[in-house]
């Protein structure tokens, strides 16, 4: 059982790290696993349809990275949060702001990453 300050460091670090890691893996397309829903296949790592079949045939095997991005962010944030829970409170002077400012900034970054849809 964690103490109250350790639990606070854990949850606040988790929120902050999750947002940062999610944006990074989203920006660089790093999925822990790739889902091919039409085929019911899951492959570890990032696999793009166009890399394994002809680009014009890619629509037959749409790939999904979202679950892999979330898994990466969840596992990465868990590691960061566990480390943060062990560190002293004085190392986190800005936690009150980071816990909401970083996710809010990450959301703005996601808007930037989505802009290509709006330029088509």
């Amino acid at each position: 059982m964690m103490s109250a300050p350790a639990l606070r460091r854990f949850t606040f670090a988790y929120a902050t790290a999750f947002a940062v890691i999610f944006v990074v893996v989203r920006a660089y397309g790093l999925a822990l696993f790739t889902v091919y829903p039409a085929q019911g296949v899951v492959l570890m790592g990032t696999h793009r349809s166009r890399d394994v079949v002809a680009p014009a045939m890619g629509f037959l095997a749409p790939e999904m990275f979202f679950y892999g991005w979330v898994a990466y962010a969840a596992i990465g944030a868990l590691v960061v949060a566990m480390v943060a829970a062990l560190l002293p409170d004085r190392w986190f002077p800005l936690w009150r702001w980071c816990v909401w400012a970083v996710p809010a900034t990450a959301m703005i970054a996601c808007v930037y990453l989505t802009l290509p849809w709006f330029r088509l």
Partner: protein
Amino acid sequence: MMTALLILHGFVAVALMGAITHQALAVCASSDARAPSFFRRFRAVPAAAFANAVIALYLLSALLGAIAYLSFKTDIQPFLERNRHWHALGFFDLKEDFIAIGLGILPAYWLCWRQSLPDHGGQARVALTVILAFIVWWSFLAGHVINNIRGFES
């Protein structure tokens, strides 16, 4: 089957939207329950009592959405791309990103609303609640627009 799942997803989303909207308005501008206007009474709820319900509904809604997303990718997205609904796809892409970030802030949101830890940042509590409310509203509207474009069983 997928239509039933989507309707259930919609029900859960409506409940979640109601709970988080009550809570967000109450935390931003609390009011007296005996106030004369509807809007003031709407804000006069015990906001802390909504936290666990919001978390449970958020997780359930995300789970149902994640299941429905498989069908979206194979059946709906190709249709939207063929018909050049790029903006709708962009809004939906943002929805999935925002929901993921919302999943990450749920533990901190839960902690901020714990009665036994009232000193852990009123500012963080307000900000996280408002962010979650924004995510829920955005997700509901984006999903609603996508659903309206394609329609059930069409």
